[in-house]
């Protein structure tokens, strides 16, 4: 609708209103623009005069059938109310007072105006990339991470040991069992039994300081040696029952009918 309006050359537009309403960012912005036309310090501005300017402006826009955003109309209605309140006799003024409302509006305009000026001054500063330039291709400071390698001597030798253990051909060493051979037992029992005239326990023929792992082998060998010597008729063996101690003594032919047999 607005487009049709502006494209129709027949309709004369008042020079003030050739600017689209898109130009303002809301009613406060428009009010500030109008206030600046009063060409006085914003602190001195007449809110009543400003209100009349705004209402007149909106009115002419309506005559042009410009489509106005709702907030412009809300502001117009509020200003119309403010205007009438300001013109009322004092005693009939509502609360809050129209003076306070006017002051609020004035303060808001001052604040918006201050920020608008501040923005302009900020943008006018010497800005990097527009007014001042850093080097376009700085070489840059380099941070080189230098590795501090950690390893202990133990790690080193343990690792080497593991490599060797892992990769050396596996050699199976069969441990040499601690044994007393039969020949050795026959020699020993044969020589000792001659010294024993009476029955003597088999264990007594074992070497006195023998290691425990070797003791069983010595016992077994000595027993087999005793059997062998008995077979040769060199000694006699006696046992009272199964698992009972085994006794040996030198063979005595004249005692063949000994009391114990």
């Amino acid at each position, binding site marked *: 609708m607005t487009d049709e309006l502006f494209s129709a050359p027949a309709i004369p537009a008042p020079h003030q209103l050739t600017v689209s309403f898109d130009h303002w960012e809301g009613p406060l912005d428009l009010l500030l623009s109008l206030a600046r036309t009063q060409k006085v310090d914003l602190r001195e501005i007449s809110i009543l005069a400003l209100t009349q300017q705004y209402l007149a402006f909106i009115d002419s826009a309506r005559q042009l059938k410009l489509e106005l955003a709702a907030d412009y109309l809300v502001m117009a209605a509020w200003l119309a109310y403010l205007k009438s309140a300001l013109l009322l006799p004092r005693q009939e003024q509502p609360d809050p007072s129209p003076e306070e409302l006017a002051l609020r509006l004035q303060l808001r305009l001052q604040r918006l105006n201050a920020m608008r000026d*501040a923005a302009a001054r900020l943008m006018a500063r010497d800005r990097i990339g527009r007014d001042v330039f850093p080097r376009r291709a700085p070489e840059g400071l380099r941070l080189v991470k230098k590795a501090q390698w950690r390893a202990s001597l133990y790690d080193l030798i343990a690792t080497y040991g593991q490599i060797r253990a892992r990769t050396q051909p596996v050699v199976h060493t069969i441990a040499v069992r601690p044994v007393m051979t039969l020949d050795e037992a026959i020699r020993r029992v044969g020589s000792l039994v001659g010294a024993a005239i009476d029955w003597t326990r088999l264990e007594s023929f074992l070497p006195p300081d023998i290691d425990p792992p070797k003791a069983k082998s010595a016992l077994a060998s000595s027993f087999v040696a005793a059997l062998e010597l008995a077979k040769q008729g060199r000694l006699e063996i006696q046992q009272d029952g199964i698992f009972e101690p085994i006794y040996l003594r030198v063979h005595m032919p004249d005692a063949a009918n000994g009391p114990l047999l």
Partner: protein
Amino acid sequence: MMSEPDDYLRAVEATLFVAETPLTPAEIRLHVGEAGDLSATLQALSDHYAGRGVNLVERAGRWHFQTAPDLAHILRREKDEQRKLSRAAMETLAIIAYHEPVSRAEIEAIRGVQVAKGTLDVLMEAGWVRPAGRREVPGRPLIYATTVEFLTHFGLSSRRDLPGIEDLRAAGLLDPVDLALEGMADQSVVENDAEDA
């Protein structure tokens, strides 16, 4: 003005020359060590380069070399043209800078219009504005503040350097309207308009 530059000064000069970003004194010390008086050296360098084609400046506690502003016309290139900020974005940036930290509602109260969705995004994308936590009021609104890059870009040593900020503060123009009205309650300034009427 300077006679023979010592090695410490030369090291600081070279470090700032090759740096890709402005450097804090701590960052400079990582390179040049602790052997000299850094702040005196930075001052000496800054004095040495004052008035030359290249200046040493401090922005938000960080130092960098940049060309002198009056030479912009010979150095500016077509592709340097920055996208122009919209008026809304410029005003919003100014409001954040002068009032920080500030919520979106507070920005809207000053501008009298809603902050369009893209406005804060543009400022944050430029690296000038950052969210700075939440205000501990109902709704816990997000609040915004400016960044170090903002100060650097606009050539400000600190927020105290914002143009006119002291005058604005003294005039109460950085206070909200309600606060300003309370302050005026005693004074009977309220008469003005009534008299005009």
